[in-house]
């Protein structure tokens, strides 16, 4: 099943999925949001208290305006209908409840969004994750992460205002309706239009334009990346003007799309506002006895102040509607990615990997998904423990698929892979991975200290172990020369280190894991030719006694190897050393 997970990651596959039927789960926006609400069940009580406080604060807010008006009006009529004490109570209630609501709602929101992230991380790790590193999925992941960021506002900006409006609506209907049924109906309908209809319309239209904007943003990003990455070419060919024009065109398209959205939002806002104004005007007419049956002066004042206050909160909902469209799409993408069809559990009890690390592949056939071409078509390999082998071939020939299979990040459709004589599908994936350490250009350096990055390889490693691994990776001198040594922050993706240094830190981490098999998947790609050779020389010395599987598109001539296979057309052929 894992291969379906993989297929979701490449753009080509997304198209394939849209065209042909695929058994990836499809969700509507609403279903996706429900999945997220279910996830928040654990925080349900807190979220509910936050909502109740919000409602209470709103009620106090409405009451405050109303009682102040009635107090004044009462005085004019020569009676104190609202006591100063009541006024004070309502006022104090408004301030404290609002404060409590803010605190509670924010606390609940922080908890809920932590849950969301943990859940997403865990789902991704369990399902598709392992395969992601084998494909260039960085951009897609960033997009998903910003989708999750967009969902942060779901509770505070959408759920709370909507709940408040849902409560205000019947309250308004009853209070106004008791004085005058006709007026109550009118104000109620207007409130519904302003708080529910307009936000709903803008949410619906916003979804489409949100998707279009996302597309334009991606287009801008690609042209900027082209320009930045191609600075040499651009200078060499004197193409500054042309490339700048390209970026500016992409920028203009994006900004034009956003302007359209802003215009629509502005009109929606004004429309919601006008509904409120009409409602106030109706009350005014009723007070004057024009068209509508005349209200008593006191009731009139009370209703008018209430209506003014009630419609004030409706503005929030138009904004919520605008975001709801965006959030719905985000929720759908996140949920579809995280909720994968449960991997068919093997009926056989899985056991731990044996000590012996002899690797044998027999007639392995593999493809990433059913609608994808076969990558491996009967691959047979035999890698004895302690041997150093290379598997060569141009890109796209299935070398990385091989690494994914060995690491149990994917499962072959036919054939067998044996580790120490046991079929690896009968072994626990974690225990297989404890035998095999993996290093590739996709190996990630975390935005953390060098120490924390190394400890990921083996959490219980001592200081001495760390330095030994750095020594082996020939990077200890560099680390020693850094002012903060092991506690130096490596920066996002290791940007504070040079390419070669970063790769060596990753190597040290891999070595620290003490796995008997090293899978090196194009470990030096992206380094310049000289750094690459130095790095490969280091690999020759550090990996003695371990099985080394070097996967590359070519050899540089410095590698020490026992066997070489060339992979082509889905099978391996032994090549001369």
């Amino acid at each position, binding site marked *: 099943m894992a291969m379906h997970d993989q297929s979701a990651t490449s753009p080509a596959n997304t198209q394939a999925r849209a065209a042909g039927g695929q058994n990836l789960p499809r969700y509507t926006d609403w279903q996706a949001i429900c999945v997220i609400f279910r996830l928040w069940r654990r925080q349900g009580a807190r979220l509910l208290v936050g909502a109740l406080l919000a409602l209470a604060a709103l009620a106090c807010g409405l009451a405050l305006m109303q009682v102040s008006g009635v107090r004044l009006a009462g005085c004019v009529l020569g009676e104190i209908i609202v006591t100063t004490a009541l006024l004070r109570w309502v006022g104090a209630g408004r301030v404290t409840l609002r404060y409590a609501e803010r605190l509670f709602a924010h606390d609940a929101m922080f908890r809920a969004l932590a849950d969301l992230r943990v859940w997403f991380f865990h789902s991704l790790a369990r399902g598709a994750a392992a395969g992601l590193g084998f494909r260039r999925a960085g951009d897609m992941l960033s997009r998903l992460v910003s989708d999750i960021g967009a969902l942060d506002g779901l509770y505070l900006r959408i759920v709370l205002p909507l709940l408040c409006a849902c409560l205000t609506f019947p309250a308004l209907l009853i209070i106004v309706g008791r004085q005058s049924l006709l007026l109550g109906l009118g104000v109620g309908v207007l409130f519904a239009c302003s708080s529910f209809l307009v936000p709903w319309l803008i949410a619906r239209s916003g979804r489409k334009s949100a998707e279009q904007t996302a597309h334009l943003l991606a287009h801008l990003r690609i042209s900027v990346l082209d320009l930045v990455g191609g600075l040499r070419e651009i200078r060499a060919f004197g193409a500054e003007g042309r490339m700048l024009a390209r970026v500016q065109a992409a920028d203009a398209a994006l900004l034009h799309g956003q302007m359209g959205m802003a215009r629509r939002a502005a009109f929606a806002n004004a429309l919601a506002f006008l509904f409120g104004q009409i409602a106030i005007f109706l009350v005014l007419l009723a007070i004057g006895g024009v068209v509508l049956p005349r209200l008593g002066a006191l009731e009139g004042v009370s209703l008018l102040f209430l209506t003014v206050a009630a419609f004030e909160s409706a503005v929030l909902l138009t904004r919520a509607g605008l975001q709801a469209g965006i959030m719905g799409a985000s929720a759908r993408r996140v949920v579809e990615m995280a909720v994968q069809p449960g991997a068919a559990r093997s009926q056989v009890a899985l056991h731990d990997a044996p000590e012996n690390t002899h690797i044998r592949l027999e007639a392995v056939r593999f493809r990433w998904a059913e609608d994808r071409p076969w990558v491996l078509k009967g691959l047979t390999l035999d890698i004895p423990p302690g041997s150093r082998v290379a598997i060569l071939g141009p890109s796209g020939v299935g070398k990385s698929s091989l690494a994914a299979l060995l690491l149990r990040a994917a499962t072959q459709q036919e054939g067998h892979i044996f580790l120490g004589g046991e079929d690896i599908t009968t072994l626990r994936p974690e225990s297989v991975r404890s035998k095999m350490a993996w290093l590739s250009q996709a190996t990630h350096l*975390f935005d953390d200290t060098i120490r924390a990055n190394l400890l990921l390889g083996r959490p219980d490693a001592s200081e001495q172990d760390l330095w030994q691994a750095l020594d082996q990776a020939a990077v200890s001198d560099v680390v020693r020369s850094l002012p903060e040594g092991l506690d130096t922050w490596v920066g996002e993706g290791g940007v504070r280190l040079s390419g070669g240094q970063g790769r060596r830190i990753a190597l040290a981490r891999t070595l620290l894991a003490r796995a008997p098999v090293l899978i090196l998947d194009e470990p030096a790609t992206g380094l310049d030719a000289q750094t690459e050779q130095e790095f490969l020389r280091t690999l020759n010395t550090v990996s003695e006694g371990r099985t080394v599987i070097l996967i590359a598109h070519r050899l540089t001539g410095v590698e020490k190897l026992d066997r070489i296979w060339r992979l082509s057309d889905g099978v391996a052929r032994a090549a001369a050393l």
Partner: protein
Amino acid sequence: MRNEKAAIRNWTRLQSRLGRQAARSVVGSGLLSSLAGIGQAWCVAVVLGHALVGWQGAAEGSIFPAWPFLLFPALAILRALCMIQADIAAARAGIVARRRLRGEVMAAILAGGPALLRRTHSGVLASLVVDRIEALDGFFGRWVPASVLWMAAPVAILVPVGIMQPRAALILGLCGVAVPVGQAVFGIGAAVASRNQFLAMTRLQARFLDRIKGIATIVLAGRTEDETRRLADAADELRVRTMKVLRVAFLSSASIDCAMVGAFILLAVLDGRQALVMQANGPSPALQHVVVASLFALLAVPEFFAPLRSFALAYQDRAHAQGAATAILDLPEVTERPVLDGARTVNANGVMVAFDDVGFTWDPARGPALEHVTFTVPAGETLVLAGPSGAGKSTIMELLLGFIAPQSGRVLFNGAPLQTIVPDALSRVVSWIGQKPVLFAGTLRDNILFAKPDADERELASALRSAAVDEFLPTLPDGLDTHIGEGGFGLSGGQAQRVAIARAYLKNAPVLLLDEPTAHLDPVTEKSVFESLQRLAVGRTVILATHSAAAHMFKGRRIDLQNGRVVNRQGAA
């Protein structure tokens, strides 16, 4: 550190000033809308006052003045128009500012040139141009106008209220002044709250993104459970820490609430007392005036506090600006290349290239990259630069391309120092092929025509043939119109290099710079690429940096470099 902070502050201030000009229309509409709101409050107060006093006088069916019923809807429509105008103007201000900033940043990047990539990752630059600037929308659209309106609008409202009811204006004014005071007491207020919340979210989001990007590494290292727990812990710790700050910071937003509630209660109680006293003497025009003015003041309270609230809400947009400032200030300043006296072009027929005692140092800590390098390549001949990486080959290439200028000595094209040549003229005479050509998002045709957009079909076909691109064309799904680059069809290293060769054919420049063009190719591909390059080299001045053994295919001069010095010469170099 302090300088940096000052620079950020200056930048933010400059942007605010620039933004304020664009936001004038937002501010104008906002003020007009506030005043219209006040006018509406007056209409409502008149109607209510009439009803109350009329009721009190038991004058059934007393005639209401008609004008409030006409003015109120008119003002409502005016306000709606103002709101539309303000929203659209705010969006436009954000768009204009983003377009301007993107232009500036792109200019800085182009000016910085390839040297910029030595210290900044291209992904970081791209995210600055796209995301950081995108996040500034709120700064220009919301924060800048709000930072003017929060003072202007309440003052504008105080004036009519003061005319009608001086005491109410005093109460409102005092409560309004209490807001900044309260905010100062609780730490610049809602501002701090929203900034802290924003920063906390940003940090959590960054950590989360980092872990998600490296998820394969985590899973394959068997650390999933560990990392899940740590992610949860980090989020929780962040929550506890942020809530501590928010607890205090929300007090300041409570201070706005407090001020508003205070205004309501004071107005209701004081004006109520006055009305109570006056009504004892029966209905009178004076009573009606007092009632109308009091109701008016009460209705003005929400209008009065609304701008203060939007100001507090917009504060987090300011934090975005500070984040962007750091990244933008990190870019080199755009300096016009000084056009020296006697700037000239180069004759395009046959160029002799020479280095005359050239020295260059990237980083004094690591020693010079080039020292006393001297060589001459006559027009139409080939020079092979050999030596390990770090010997200075790439530095020579960057000097020849004009990306950097020699710190000592001279680089000569037909005897003219490079700095005196017009940049356009230089890029016309030089073709360059590096280790890995950049393929832009677009069709294969666009990518080759990149070298010469106005080339005709015949020229293109000849370049394709000479570079042997036509050999792999049939294997592409749409031939020349196949989309390559980001998100498109992946070309192999050898194929990409052939695209670069085709570009060079099309450009047809007299000088050809080859910087390890086969470093990433396997031996078979390397040989055939070298053959194409040999054909391309005919009749051109060629400088080839390589440490490949296959370079012997190029006949000509050769120098060996080591640690930035020429250690061996062959031929007449």
